């Protein structure tokens, strides 16, 4: 047993860190967040060329056949760089396609970055349970037509392919829809993390190509649940990277900023905040990498492990972000300081796939009610 990165995983981490340091400094993030899409073709190619869009998917699907731990490594580094653009939406869509329809040509194009994806799950009510999925899928001759509205869809603005969760009279349905299909209308919504865009999507009698029906009922539920675990894990790993950035930046500031003729890092009140930030960050590291490992190596424990990670990390990341601003004082509260990027990303990730309270409620059912 080794509860630490292997050598190849450390090398992967270093190469991701180097790539983002070169190509995705905060200045670049700020430029992109000011655009409508937060998308930059060179940055996208740099990541796609590494194969990271399919790092956890088998080679026959166009992936590079590593695992969820490696996906977490990349996600952690993306969090540390506040990487903008549709990585997560594309990985999510690819994960769902790989689980339901692994030979689709679309999947290959998503993992190579030729196409960008998004998963339309939430609806205006905003519930993360599968039971909250009510978008109407009307059965028509071996396929469906979709009518209704999706909300809060991550990376839909840039997506070429939408994977949509809908409900037919017989149960849950997963379909792929070209973003350009007739009757699909994607409208941007303004959200606090501008480095990643959210959108509402309306479906007006949209015809689904029979080849694009990915799964229904139990198979659709399972694929969606498992993909949500992967996305929640990515969110946690990104939060971890962001926490590490905030911690290091805040500690550095505490060593240089002078008040009362001393560096503020001399003051115990400041040290205490930073020490707590270490505790939260290291605890998140344990939770994230255990869950990443469990998704591949101990699937029976994956749901519980991811629930623990998302419940713990969502709170811990917010606490670290808050302390980070507090250590910085006035400058930490400005638009000018890069902390704001990580602060907002942290909040958005806290919400994604359900916050702490949501995952705690699910855990009680899983571990206490059924015990």
């Amino acid at each position, binding site marked *: 047993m080794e509860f630490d990165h292997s050598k190849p995983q450390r090398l992967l981490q270093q190469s991701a860190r180097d790539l983002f340091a070169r190509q995705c400094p905060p200045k670049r993030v700020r430029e992109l967040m000011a655009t409508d899409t937060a998308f930059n073709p060179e940055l996208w190619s740099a990541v796609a060329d590494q194969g990271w869009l399919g790092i956890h998917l088998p080679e026959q699907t166009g992936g590079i056949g590593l695992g969820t731990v490696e996906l977490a490594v990349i996600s952690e580094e993306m969090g540390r760089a506040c990487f903008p653009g549709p990585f997560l939406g594309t990985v999510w869509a690819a994960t769902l396609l790989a689980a339901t329809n692994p030979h689709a040509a679309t999947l290959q194009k998503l993992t190579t970055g030729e196409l960008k994806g998004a998963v339309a799950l939430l609806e205006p009510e905003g519930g993360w349970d599968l039971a909250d999925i009510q978008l109407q899928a009307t059965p028509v001759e071996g396929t469906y037509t979709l009518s209704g509205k999706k909300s809060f869809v991550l990376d839909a603005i840039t997506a070429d392919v939408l994977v949509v969760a809908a409900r037919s009279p017989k149960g849950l349905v997963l379909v792929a829809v070209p973003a350009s299909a007739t009757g699909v209308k994607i409208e941007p919504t303004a959200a606090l993390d501008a480095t990643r865009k959210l959108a509402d999507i309306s479906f007006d009698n949209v015809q689904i190509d029979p080849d694009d029906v990915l799964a229904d009922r139990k198979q659709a539920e399972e694929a969606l649940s498992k993909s949500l675990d992967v996305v929640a894990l990515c969110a946690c790993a990104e939060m971890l990277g962001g926490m590490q950035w905030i911690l290091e930046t805040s500690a550095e500031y505490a060593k240089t900023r002078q008040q009362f003729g001393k560096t503020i890092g001399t003051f115990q009140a400041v040290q205490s905040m930073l020490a707590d930030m*270490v505790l939260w960050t290291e605890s998140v590291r344990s939770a994230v990498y255990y869950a990443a490992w469990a998704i591949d*190596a101990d699937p029976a424990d994956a749901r519980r492990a991811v629930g623990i990670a998302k419940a713990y990390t969502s709170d811990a990341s917010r606490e670290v972000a808050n302390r980070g601003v507090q250590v910085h004082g006035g400058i930490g509260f400005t638009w000018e300081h890069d902390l704001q990027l990580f602060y907002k990303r942290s909040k958005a990730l806290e919400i994604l796939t359900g916050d702490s309270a949501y995952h705690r409620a699910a855990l009680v059912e899983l571990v206490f009610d059924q015990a």
Partner: protein
Amino acid sequence: MDLGLTDSELKFRDELRAWLKANLPKKMVKSADNAKEYYQYLSDWQMALYKGGWAGVSWPKEYGGRGSSFIEQAIFQEEMALADAPERMGTIGQGLVGPTIIAVGTEEQKKKYLPRILSGEDIWCQGFSEPNAGSDVASLETKAVLDGDHFVINGQKIWTSYAHIAQQCLLIVRTDPAAAKHKGITALLVDMKTPGIEVSPLKMMSGDSMFNEMFFTNLRVPVSAVIGKVNEGWNVAITALANERANLGTGLYVIFKRNLDAMVDQAKRLKRGGRPVIEDPVIRQRLAQAYVDLEVFRLNTTRSLSMLNKTGAPGPEGSIQKLYWSELNQRMAQIAMEVLGPYAQLTDYDGGRWVYNYLRSRGNTIEAGTSEVQRNIIAQRVLGLPRSY
């Protein structure tokens, strides 16, 4: 990153499982039932572990240990928790004094003390704190003067856990009052039966007396009892404290998990508003908080042991563990109170365990280095911030 077990680790686990199946006490005695009976229950269990070769998993074989890795130590903790095994007795000896003797003791000291720590025959206490030397323990004043081949010791220690039942004491004393405060300290391994030691129990707010005052009047301790070198006892103390922080955490998961299970059980049995308490959405959130925090503690412990396996010596991550578990236990004790409602205040409800836990846990953020000291250590040694005092 591979949390799967190697063949030899699997073998270790399976042997342990088989042994537990055959040797786990049939009857569960709870701490609240009867202090004497509980003490005997734990002694018997400790002796059984020792005889089975499981008492000191990562300790050297020649001193009664198993000679296994820290990874196997982690597996051991997991299996103990899974089997709902009793807690271990003599945590100061096993968690703090033993590793210190292994690190800096002489061959003779290792042979003499280590097996009896593992068997539970010797309970140890730790004579560190004094009335004027708490968090700043290096300012201790208990004086030792050389007289032939003995030190003559006069002074006082305080907050000494288990001194009233201990056979041995790791004692630190000032042997060179002229030297700088960290330089004139010596560490001694002292037999508690030596004349000149008076132990006076201190009652805790929980009503029991786990810690004590110790008074030394012309206590004569042979020079051969020195561990490490004369006037270099501070290094010994630091080694002991680092091990205390790193190791105490590893056995605690078992105890905390038992508490949480009992708490959930209470929440299922008690009713309020005509419904089981566990159906109250606020209580559900609170129980889940305890569960999540506890499981993250388990993962932190496993990761720490995995790191320790690489580095060999506990570092400042021990302070993270100490800070984490002490505050966790306090939060859990509070959540239990919320589950129990008005029953929480009854000192004889459920054998008094919940009131006891609540009050006892208050001391967790003070003993073994206050949370403030742990945060100082983390800030200074992990982040490299300047000393604040």
